[in-house]
C-alpha cells in the first residue's frame, strides 16, 4: 500500500531537523528524519523517529530512500 509524504521541520537542536510525515490511507503512520553529518556514513538516510504500528522482526534503524521505507512498511509493519 503506497504511502504519501509531507515534508516538515523538526523543532530540535540535535541537527536532524529535516523530516517527513508518512501517511497510510491519509492517516499519520510515522515521522521520519533525515540523518545529518554527525552520523557519518549514515548521513542522508531516513530514520524512523516514531511509528504508530506494530513492527515485526528487528526494525531497520534507517533507510536509504523513501521507497525503501515503503517496502519495509509493506513487509514488516502491521496496524496496531
Amino acid at each position, binding site marked *: 500500500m503506497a504511502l504519501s509524504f509531507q515534508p516538515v521541520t523538526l523543532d530540535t537542536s*540535535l*541537527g*536532524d531537523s529535516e523530516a517527513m510525515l508518512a501517511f497510510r490511507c491519509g492517516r499519520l503512520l510515522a515521522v521520519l528524519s533525515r540523518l545529518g553529518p*554527525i552520523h557519518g556514513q*549514515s548521513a542522508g538516510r531516513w*530514520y524512523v523517529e516514531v511509528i504508530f504500528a506494530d513492527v*515485526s522482526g*528487528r526494525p531497520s534503524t534507517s533507510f536509504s530512500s523513501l521507497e525503501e521505507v515503503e517496502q519495509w512498511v509493506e513487509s514488516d509493519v502491521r496496524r496496531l
Partner: protein
Amino acid sequence: MVGNEKVPFEGLIRKLERLAKLDEEDREALASLRFSTETINEDRHLVREGDEPSDCAVLVAGHACRYKSLSSGGRQIVSFHLPGDMLDAEQLLLSRADHSIQAITDVIVAWVPTVDLKKVVRERPAIADALWRDCLIDASVFREWVLNVGQRDPRSRIAHMLCEFAARRQAAGLGPPEGAALPMSQERIADATGLTSVHVNRMLHALMTQGVIALDGRHVQIIDWNGLRTIAEFDPGYLHAVAA
C-alpha cells in the same frame, strides 16, 4: 591487555576484600584455586543462555557484558564487567545460565571449576559473605538499570551508564574517570540503554557539545567527571562497597 594470567585472582581478591574481611587463609584459599586461562576475542561468547557450565568465569583482563535477547534479535545488555569480576557466581547454585556473557574487548578469563569454588565457599565463611554481597550488589545494580532504562531521559541515561562504569573502574584500581577511553561501542551503549544507535550518537554529540565527554572513533572518553555526574544525577550509593 592489562592483567596477569599467572596470578589471575589478584583483581578478584582485591574486590572481595572490599566486600568482607578476608584473612590470610581466605586470600590463600582463593589464590590457590585450580584454574585454566583462556584468551577470548571481542564479540565471542563466554556463556550462552541455556548453557550448563561446569566452571565459573573470572575476568582477568578486558571487558565483558551480560545480556538477554529476544527471538527477533533485539537484545538488552544488563551489565558491563571489569577485570576482577566473577561473571557468573550464580552458577554456584543455579545450574542453567539464564543469560549470555560476551566479550566486548579481547579478554583473558580464568575458568574455575564450580565444584572447587563451592568447597572454598563452604569452608571459608568470609569468602561466602563476600560472594553473597557481590551477588546482592549485582541485584542493586540491576534495579538501578531498570530505573535508568525506564525513567531517565536519554541524555542522563547514557551519562549515568558511563558514570557507573567509570566509578567501578576507578574502584577496581584501573585509573581515574577522567581521561580513560571507555570500551563500549555506540551499538553496545544503545543495547544497554534501550535506545537506537542513531539516538545514542545524537546524545553523545550533545554531551560532547556540553564539554563533558570526547569521542574517539568508536569510544567515549570522560573529560569532565563532575559535569557528567551532574547531568546523570549520579549517586554511587547503590554500588555499595564495589565503588565506596
